């Protein structure tokens, strides 16, 4: 009986170990590969014998990668700020005021979040060119609203609806206008919800590929995912895998740090009520 229990325990931890290796190994391998210079890259060894930073330097030499990172930061921050501003004001109306067509509007917002991006590609291309925003970061910021706005509006509306109504009543009695109610009464309470939705919007904008690939043209305007997808080396027959791995590590590490700091919030944001029953 005792032996059986120990065996069961050992099997369980073996399973846990398998899960960890499965989840972490690909990224570990990217780090190891990025530290191998020259021909070391083409030997499979699970620990770099002579770690070297050549690949990291190579990434910035081969293309305007610093500029690409800056582009991604600018686009993602602007997308977060804009979608949070639009979503906070809208969620007040959707969450706290009763008017005709509210349910329908929320359904439409939910519907937009299901749009396949390619379904709006030609219309969006025309719009962006017409606005003169082709190969311009502004065009990306605008187009990214299609996938960040629906879920920020949705999550913040759910949150706004659950705030106690006594707060609002007291403010109304004091003669506060709706704008004052949002900015002075509700906004200070929404910190956690804003952090969660903001972070999810940031990650979504940071990782976006299809629009960034289609609506930018020059190396200088590319965001990080497009730059990484299109890295080509000096030889047209072999991709510079070392550089690609280094670039991958560079853009992923800050993201992972953010995710680790905010992991609890992310988990609650991802599950956003899906399981509340």
């Amino acid at each position, binding site marked *: 009986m005792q032996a059986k229990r120990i065996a069961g325990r050992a099997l369980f931890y073996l399973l846990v170990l398998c899960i960890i290796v499965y989840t972490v190994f690909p990224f570990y391998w990217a780090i190891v*590969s990025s530290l191998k210079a020259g021909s070391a890259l083409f030997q499979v060894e699970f620990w770099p014998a002579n770690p070297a930073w050549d690949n990291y330097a190579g990434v910035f030499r081969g293309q305007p990668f610093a500029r690409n990172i800056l582009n991604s930061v600018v686009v993602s921050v602007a997308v977060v700020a804009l979608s949070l501003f639009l979503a906070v004001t809208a969620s007040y109306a959707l969450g706290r005021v009763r008017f005709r067509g509210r349910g329908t509007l929320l359904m439409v917002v939910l519907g937009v979040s299901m749009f396949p991006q390619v379904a709006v590609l030609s219309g969006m291309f025309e719009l962006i060119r017409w606005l003169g925003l082709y190969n311009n970061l502004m065009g990306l910021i605008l187009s990214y609203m299609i996938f960040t706005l629906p879920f920020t509006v949705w999550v913040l509306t759910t949150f706004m609806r659950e705030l106690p109504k006594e707060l609002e009543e007291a403010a109304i009695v004091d003669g506060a206008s709706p704008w004052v109610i949002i900015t002075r009464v509700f906004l200070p309470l929404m910190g956690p919800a804003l952090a969660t939705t903001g972070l999810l919007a940031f990650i979504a904008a940071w990782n976006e590929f299809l629009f960034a690939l289609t609506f930018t043209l020059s190396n200088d305007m590319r965001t990080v995912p497009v730059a990484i997808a299109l890295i080509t080396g000096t030889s047209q027959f072999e991709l510079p895998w070392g550089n690609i791995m280094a670039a991958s590590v560079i853009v992923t590490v800050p993201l992972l740090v953010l995710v680790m700091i905010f992991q609890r919030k992310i988990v609650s944001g991802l599950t956003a009520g899906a*399981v509340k029953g």
Partner: protein
Amino acid sequence: MTTAFDTNGLPAQQAAPAARTKGSALTRQRRRAALIFLAPMVIVLALVAGWPLARTIYFSFTDATLYNLEYHEFIGFLNFYYLAIDPQWWRAVWNTVFFAVVSVLIETILGMVIALTLNAHMPGRGLLRAAMLIPWAIPTVVSAQMWGWMYHDLYGVINEIFLGVGLIDLPHAWIADPALSMYAVIAVDVWKTTPFMTLLILAALQLLPGEVYEAARVDGINPVKVFFKVTLPLIKPALMVAIIFRTLDALRIFDLMYVLTGNSRATASMSVYARQQLVDFQDVGYGSAASTFLFLIIAAFTVIYITVGKVNFDGQGGK
């Protein structure tokens, strides 16, 4: 990116303002303010979603080209006719459906196993849950490149490991071989999105009442039986939401295939096909027809989701 929403009691009435009793002038003022606050969001959404969608559907009935969008002629259903007789398009439809069904199925099973493991009490559980977020947070393009390198036919670590374990006799070209490339793509997607499934299932598991399990343990009921008779029915609503969201996401997949295998016919999804027609071949009319078709499929799924959601998750009966 996937996010699951709460469709629970959506148009709920409880949120109605208490101010209603305080005179209609106040109510009117609030309504007016609400409309002003809503307007920016509605305008932006109409501009970036409604209008482009309408134009895409319009273009699908024309012969517009990318280098000359303005001058085009209405050609009726001709694009859809060409689409219907193009075996490459049907290959893309099949690829997408096959990809969606297989990867969501594997993700669900794997996510369930991992969630049940993480649900057990053990030291370092928080750390494990944090590790689960790594594949989820890595950009799809980056995971495609990481796996592309691991799949490399000459220097890839996967060939090395599989040869070492004796799983294969010869190194395989996982990406280039049309018979293998779809499975290679699915494996990356499973790796990247199983964490999403796991976290949703885990959240549902942690809400289950402990007494039921205590009782089952005292009665000496087989754990497997407990899982199928108790756990599964209880987490079914959450599981359904997760599965539907993942399926919708899988049906519009683009970046994974594009980066890993390019426009290769063996793996091209509907999105890859539509973009290739639109941008690479500059055929906006035909590409838009393909996009519109994909949109209709996803719209049908969405309607089913919202209807099912109403029935299953809306205890109070919605309106």
